[in-house]
Each structure stands twice: as structure tokens, then as C-alpha cells.
């Protein structure tokens, strides 16, 4: 799983569709989501890039992107937000939400 930094973030979102998990170590729901996000990254391999961004590394960048609650997954395409999923969800619901978000870029 690619861990983005404030430096690598801008370039990462300008490419094809990528979903980024804004998270923090102090956030229990974020930790709970992590294994699901990792599993789904393999399932969506080739269709959607997955990456994580620790908001402790760049709180301002998270706020600039309107992240006001974590975990927050934002799907970017060509540098723009396409969709977002807020909060921890069970795996089937998360899979479905990501599929729905991905349809918006196809």
C-alpha cells in the first residue's frame, strides 16, 4: 500500500483514478478500516489505485481537501474529487460504495 506524503500527494491525484484513505494512528475506526482497505486494494487492482495519507503528516492538506472526519476515503481523477466515503463501513458496504464511486469515472 502506497503511503503518500504532502510532497507526493499532488502528483498522485493527477493521474488515473486513485482512492486515498485519510487516516491517523489515534483514530480507532481508521485502524479498524485498514485491513478492509488493504483487501479491497487487491480486489480492485488494475482498475483503481489505492493509497493512504496519514493526516499527521499534513493536517493542512487534509483540511484543504475538506476532510473533517476520519476515516475518509476520497476518489480523485485528474486532480479532482469524484466521490468520497466517510466513516468506517463493513467490507461489503465499502466494496459497494467504491464500485459506485468508480462508475462515476468510467
Amino acid at each position, binding site marked *: 500500500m502506497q503511503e503518500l506524503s504532502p510532497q507526493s500527494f499532488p502528483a498522485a491525484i493527477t493521474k488515473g483514478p486513485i482512492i486515498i484513505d485519510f487516516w491517523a*494512528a489515534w483514530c*480507532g475506526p481508521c485502524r*479498524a478500516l485498514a485491513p478492509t482497505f488493504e483487501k479491497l486494494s487487491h480486489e480492485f487492482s488494475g482498475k483503481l489505485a489505492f493509497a493512504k495519507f496519514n493526516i499527521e503528516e499534513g493536517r493542512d492538506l487534509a483540511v484543504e481537501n475538506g*476532510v*473533517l*472526519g*476520519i476515516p475518509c476515503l476520497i476518489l480523485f481523477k485528474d486532480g479532482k474529487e469524484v466521490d468520497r466515503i*466517510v466513516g468506517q463501513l463493513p*467490507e*461489503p458496504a465499502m466494496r459497494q460504495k467504491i464500485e459506485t464511486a468508480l462508475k462515476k469515472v468510467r
Partner: protein
Amino acid sequence: MTDYDVIIVGAGAAGMTAAIYTCRKQLKTLVISRDVGGQTNQTNHIENYPGVDPQPGPQLMEKFKANAESFGAVFEYGGVTKVDKNKDNTFTLTIDDGTARTTRAVILSFGRNARRLNIPGEEQFWGRGVATCVTCDAPLFKGKVVAVVGAGNAAAEGALELAPLGSKVYLIHRSEKFRADEITVQKLKADKRVTIMLNKTPIEVKGDKFVTSITLKDTINGKTSDLPLDGIFLEIGSIVDSSAVAGLVSRNEQNEVIVDKNGNTSCPGIFAAGDVTPVKYKQTVISAGEGAVAALECHAWLTGQKGVH
């Protein structure tokens, strides 16, 4: 032949402790949960769990999980939508992905969920300014105007946690009486960065892309007013969603699962532990102890019933 000897529903302190005990009793154990850690995850700093150094709640819960897994517990992520009792006294649990698992016994330990206000705008702006976890999201509101709704310990401590970060912090409560510990209330009242608004209740969350204000109703004179802000944290207690076992076990008016002192529910073969029960004190160490009791009772029931295979 069932899939498992015991399925534990929920992976907080009660469920994971129960898993340690059932595994050590050589019961084939599955833990199904929407998360790992439960309510303890909401605690950034747990220092009253005996024998361990003060640490974040999620960190302690990860140790619980590793401990349970070391004894053979299997974890699956998902929610149990229905529990059915079969003719042969085994149970079938339906998972929210549509699949099902069978088991000889069940331990309910799925705890509680944060209560919501159920007002217009709350769902729309969820994660866009409306939040429940101060510990998780407080750092994202640095320099912003925020409100905490509630009057218990979580609300008071949340306001105190936000005070050094936010440019302005309001604590909103529908009456004049606090439920928080007196020492916390004193701290709150002494903190000049927190404005306490009593006899007010939110009736609508407004915004564009993110929250911009809330509408408050005065609970005494009924007048409404708008309060401009960037974030609103709901710390108004928690509820139990035990609908999956409705009709199968006895529950009280709060939907908590009624148990005897050993964790037996009204349905033989179904046990419960932790915050899903009417236990008065919601504490990690108490849930862990209850989980152990329910697991041992479950083992006694299973071995008395058929013997462990």
C-alpha cells in the same frame, strides 16, 4: 455438524476476551464484527486497565485481538443481521453480505453505537462537520468554531479536548443539569475558552458543502436561533441495536440483552457480555471480565449439553 462451536458477535473488550477463553477451552471460535475494539477505540488514553502502561484504546484492543488469534480465534469482518434457532437447537447467523454461519452457541458482545440527533442535515453533513469521535477528528478543527452536544463525561471531556485547538468551543445541552463527573464539570466551567449553552437543543444542521451553522431551539421559551460554526460533535450517549436477536432473547426497554450473573440470556445457548447488557458501568475492564464469565458459562453449557467435539 455446525461450522463452529461458538460464534462471538462483536469484537470489543468483552467479545475478544470471550474468544480467548473459548479458544483455550478448545472450542472452535469465530468472531464476527464490524470493527475491532468497540467503545474502547474511542478512548485516546486508557490508564485504568490493570497491568498495562497507559496507552491509546485502539492499541490495547489490537493486543486483545492478537491474544485471541494466538489461541486460534478466527475474525471475520461483517455485521450479523439475524440469529435463528434451528430445530436441533443449533443457531444460524445471517451476515450482512448474505452468507450464513452455523454454530452450537452464540455470545452476544456487539456493544453500543453512538446515538444520533435524527434532525435535518445531520446525515447530509456527516463527516463534513458533523462527527461523534472527538478523539478522532478534533485535530481537523484546529482554529475553527465547534460545538459539542451533550452533558455527560464524553461531552464535557470532548469540549475540554477541543478547547486548546478550536478558536471557539460551545457546549450545548438541552437542560441545566450535567451528568458528567463533578470534577470534570468544574474544569469545564473554569475553562474560559468554552461557552456553555444550557436549555438549547439543535433542530437542524445547515451548510453548503460543509457545515456552516446549526439552528438551536430554546427548550424553555421555544425560540430558535442560528449559531454559525464549522463543526458539531455529538456526544449524546449510545444505544443498543439488538434487532438481530429480537424475539429470541429477552431485552429491556433500552433494547439491552437481559442476562443473569453468569451471562445466560433467556435463550439457552445464547450468552451476552459487556455493554450490550444492562451492566451499569461501561468500562473496558468490566467488559473483559464479563466476556470471560460468558465464555466459561458457554463452555459449561456446551460440555453439559453434548460434550466438546
